[in-house]
């Protein structure tokens, strides 16, 4: 079928072609720049800690460990069972602390509170602290990235 009128002029066509080509070229330059400026971050699949470092913890206390580049918190309950958290407030990423007299986790940034199991109970935090799966194997404590529910 022959169109009676052309949809665009020859100049428009050529300008579009060149413009598109220059655009594609520039995009190919911008792509590696954007890739480069975001460093890769990979959350660890698991972190292995020596049991000896945590054995002497009194009940109802926490001790830090490194969960990749985030704060990890190892908590020993009254019954001697260990649980592991990512010690980062779910509100705006501040590190939380455990106040053992009150049996609560506290975030000082915006007055956020979690109970001793990491459930958000006061202030702005929208979700509980993230739980990590903990397996004790011989002399090692293996912290895995799944939550305990996923793992079981």
């Amino acid at each position: 079928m022959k169109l009676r009128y052309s949809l665009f002029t020859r100049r428009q066509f050529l300008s579009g072609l060149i413009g598109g080509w220059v655009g594609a070229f520039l995009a190919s330059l911008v792509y590696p720049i954007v890739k480069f400026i975001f460093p890769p971050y990979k959350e660890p699949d698991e972190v292995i800690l020596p049991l000896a470092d945590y054995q002497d913890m009194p009940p109802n206390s926490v001790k830090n460990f490194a969960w990749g580049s985030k704060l990890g918190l190892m908590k020993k309950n009254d019954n001697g069972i260990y649980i592991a958290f990512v010690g980062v407030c779910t509100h705006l990423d501040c590190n939380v602390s455990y106040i053992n007299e009150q049996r609560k986790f506290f975030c000082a940034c915006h007055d956020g509170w979690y109970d001793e199991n990491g459930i958000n109970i006061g202030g702005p935090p929208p979700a509980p602290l993230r739980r990590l799966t903990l397996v004790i194997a011989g002399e090692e404590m293996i912290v895995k990235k799944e939550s305990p529910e996923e793992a079981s």
Partner: protein
Amino acid sequence: MKKGIQAWLDERFGLSGITDFMTKKSVPLHKHTVWYYTGSAILLFFAIQIVTGFMLVLYYKPTLEMANESVGRIMTEIPLGWIIRSVHSWSASFMIVFVFVHLLSIWIAKSYRSPRELTWMSGVLLLFISLFFGFTGYLLPWDDLSFSATKVGTDIPRAIPVVGAWVTNLLRGGEDVTGDTLTRFFGIHVCMLPVFIFILLAIHIYLVQKLGMSLPLDVEGKQEKVKEIPFWPNFVFREMIVWFLLVGILFSIAIFFPPSLEKAADVMAPAPEGIKPEWYFLFLFQTLKIFPAHVLFVSGETLAVLLMVLAIVLFFFLPFFDTKPAGTKGKVITILAYVFILYALVMSVWSLL
């Protein structure tokens, strides 16, 4: 809409003066026009250096403990980091190549003559800044090779009587090349030199626009009018074709020949064999090597360094030695240019043997 924004900005900045100038500016067309492209090629590589430099400095850590490791991280962990470093390293060499070609073309065409003396002198300063960029950048990966090359390079001024030792201490930030030198070179490379190069570049480019394009001798002498093309868009589009070619060549080389990274320098380790500076310092390196230990009553090194300083001073003030009016021939100066090229080539090749 676009017109409206343009008018609004023009009212405040007075941009129309610049855009009018750009549309009226024309470039002479003759058999030596090809040399006019070298200036914008330098700017192209300089722009690439700025962009890749901005990127590398996001991850580079200028300390004794971290420098080598952080470059290693850029090469291995950061997405496409190896290409970025490779392009930065190669683009530096390309820039130096074009700086030399640009300079030699002006030298041989005698374009530095009145009224372009200051254009020449600002250009020579830009050459030294470019070389200093290269020299300071070479140390930053902090491996054996760059460490040793910097030891040698910063030791050279020591041969200058009276002020030499002081200059060496100033460069090194102490008696020896240490972590302080690394941090100092980093600061020079990313803070000081960029400021100086922008100021000089502004002066240089302003002068080129103010005084107009210089014509080579055999064109200037002719009676008939020289053919010209408009700078915008005709000449800029031609330049863009050259830029595309150069970018293609640069990226191809950068991808297939990325720079190496040796293990971190140990300040106590003996120098590795076959240390070499960057290629553009090879001829100076070899010149120092061939001077005998003693010439009459001075040390060979002192003599060599003093001769180099003398050559640099003469070179810088060239427009004031060659005061013939533009358009007249100058055989001696032309021969000197070719002698320099030959000397630099022979010495560079010799140093590699």
